């Protein structure tokens, strides 16, 4: 197969925090454990000769848990880390997200309306936070997931301050 043509636009410069990989792995482990418990409960509680679907589920359930575990723990965290990139330039915030469908989003500082920093429960364990930059357009939102908490704080403060300075009408 011929090599992929170059990307239509430049990739942002910076990666997320390396802790993001550990967070995604942790989320994968949690998800796999939940599914594993559900499948175990099914195997223990539902008799094997209950109906025609049950034997299928007895096979498919554990297989699904194994595949889910491999993908969400072994593969996806690293892939995600390699794809997600972000950058704050002098005039704009720039991100790249997505794996199969890639999305580059660029928002100028002068059109920023609000900057949100959120810290989920799992994120707090790993000392991470997400930044969301909102504009007047419902589709023009930039989200940077999983930065180190103090980096996120600094970026948000910096963006909010600069947006205040250069904002003309923001719509």
């Amino acid at each position, binding site marked *: 197969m011929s090599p992929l043509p170059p990307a239509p636009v430049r990739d942002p410069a910076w990666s997320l925090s390396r802790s993001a990989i550990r967070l995604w792995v942790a989320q994968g482990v949690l998800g796999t454990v939940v599914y594993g418990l559900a499948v175990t409960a099914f195997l223990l509680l539902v008799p094997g000769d209950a109906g025609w679907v049950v034997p299928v589920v007895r096979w498919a359930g554990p297989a699904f848990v194994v595949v889910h575990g491999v993908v969400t723990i072994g593969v996806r965290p690293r892939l995600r880390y390699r794809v997600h990139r972000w950058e704050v330039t002098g005039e704009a915030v720039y991100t790249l997200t997505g794996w199969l469908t890639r999305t580059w989003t*660029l928002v100028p500082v002068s059109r920023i309306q609000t900057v949100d920093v959120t810290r989920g429960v799992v994120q707090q364990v790993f000392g991470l936070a997400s930044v969301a930059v909102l504009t007047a357009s419902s589709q023009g939102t930039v989200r940077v997931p999983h930065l180190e908490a103090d980096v996120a704080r600094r970026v948000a403060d910096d963006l909010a301050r600069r947006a205040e300075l250069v904002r003309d009408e923001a719509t």
Partner: protein
Amino acid sequence: MTGPGEPAGRRTSPWVLLLHTITFKQARGLVPVVLAVIAGRGLDGPATVVALVVGVTLLSLLWAALSWWRFSYADGETSVVVTRGLLSRSVRTVPIDRIRGVEVEAPALHRLFGLVRVRIDAAAGSIGGKQEELVVDGVPRAEGDRLRTRLLARRVPAGAPAAPDGEVPAAEPEEELTRFDPRWLRYAPLVGSYLAVPLAAVGALFRVLDEVPQRWKPDLGRPDLPGTSVVVLFLLAAALVLIAGSVVGCVVVNWRFRLVRRGGSLIAVRGLLTRRHTELEIDRIRGSTVSQGLGMRLVGAARASALVTGLGDAARRGQLLPLGPRSEAWALAGRLVEDPGPLRVHPPAARRRSVVRSCAAGVLVLAVGSVLTATLGWWWVPVAGAVLTALGVPLGRARYAALGHAAGPNSFAVRSGWLVREHTVLQRRAVVGWQVRQTIVQRRAGLATVLACVGAGRGGYAAVDMAADEAAAFARAASGSWSSALSGSSALSG
């Protein structure tokens, strides 16, 4: 009926009691209860009917009175406060500088009492829907106009070039931009939304007929006509009903539509039964859309809308020309936003992708159908799949033909859509962000979809499947210098 001081609440006109009693505005919630009573007791004799009617009317009056009594509004120095609620009081305060538009409408019954309904639009961005507006229902026309001028005059910032303080907008010269020509009604049967009116009416009629007890239905017998002529007659009648209904629907909505420019605003007035008066601030207009449905393209008709920042219910309120000749729509759109020049055609790879996508559903049916033919003998499934696939080719080509984009010195344009072709022209300053999307297929074909994020209209307008290597240049040409971050080496990091 007005409060003594400025901040004190004003009440709506007491006539609104009568109005709401007649229309059962508040008592509509009782309909299921009444139906239940009828179902339980049966309609034995006229006495019950009279009692029910009187009871419901009294309840409705009581309800309307309570609502009227508990409702007040106040337009203060800096904000509008609306207080309402029978048991739980709700107080909504909207700062005047957040008000994006004020619409005064006069439904037929309101006009009988000389009243209007004022909708105050305080939507932030294009996210909020109807909940973002305040409705003051039933004030005298003069009070409605006073509210509108006051709220809108306040909103103009101090340094704006608009006009000195204390202006009376009515005294300003008006320039008529367009006026609905009754000849344009002939386009109505080809517009989907107007065709929906008679269809909905016929549907409702059949539902009502279903409810009528069998013994009350007249026995028409069976007409002594051969089957084919019945079918032909029925189809003819249906076509006539559709055409007439769509024209009537168009008349009701657009009767005596006028678009005028007065000072810094565009004012649209329209409607036969309900007169609507919508005011758009020209300074907030960021672009325009000329849309043409399939049928409209056949006869050269079009619809033009303005894209206004922070306008709720934008699809209806932004309309500049609900229906008219293409040339008229283009002229209007051209007055708002400069034309960026002829559109660039998208690369042949976009045509291939479009055709493949349009045929995909047909191919799927074909594949599933082949299996079904082999197992169940359903030969007609693959035949349908083949027909769908064949139809996909012209459809895909037509969808490709609709694609295009252009960037001019002060504006840019994107066009797409086959069922409804939308040609949107936006000002450079409209862009609040860019989004470049690429699926795996697009990546292999060297295509990308470039979405201009805009704080008006739908929120984003896309140039679908443009050549990937043109994406950065297009964004740079269509917006400010900040967008060079997409192409050049990274700028100074902040």
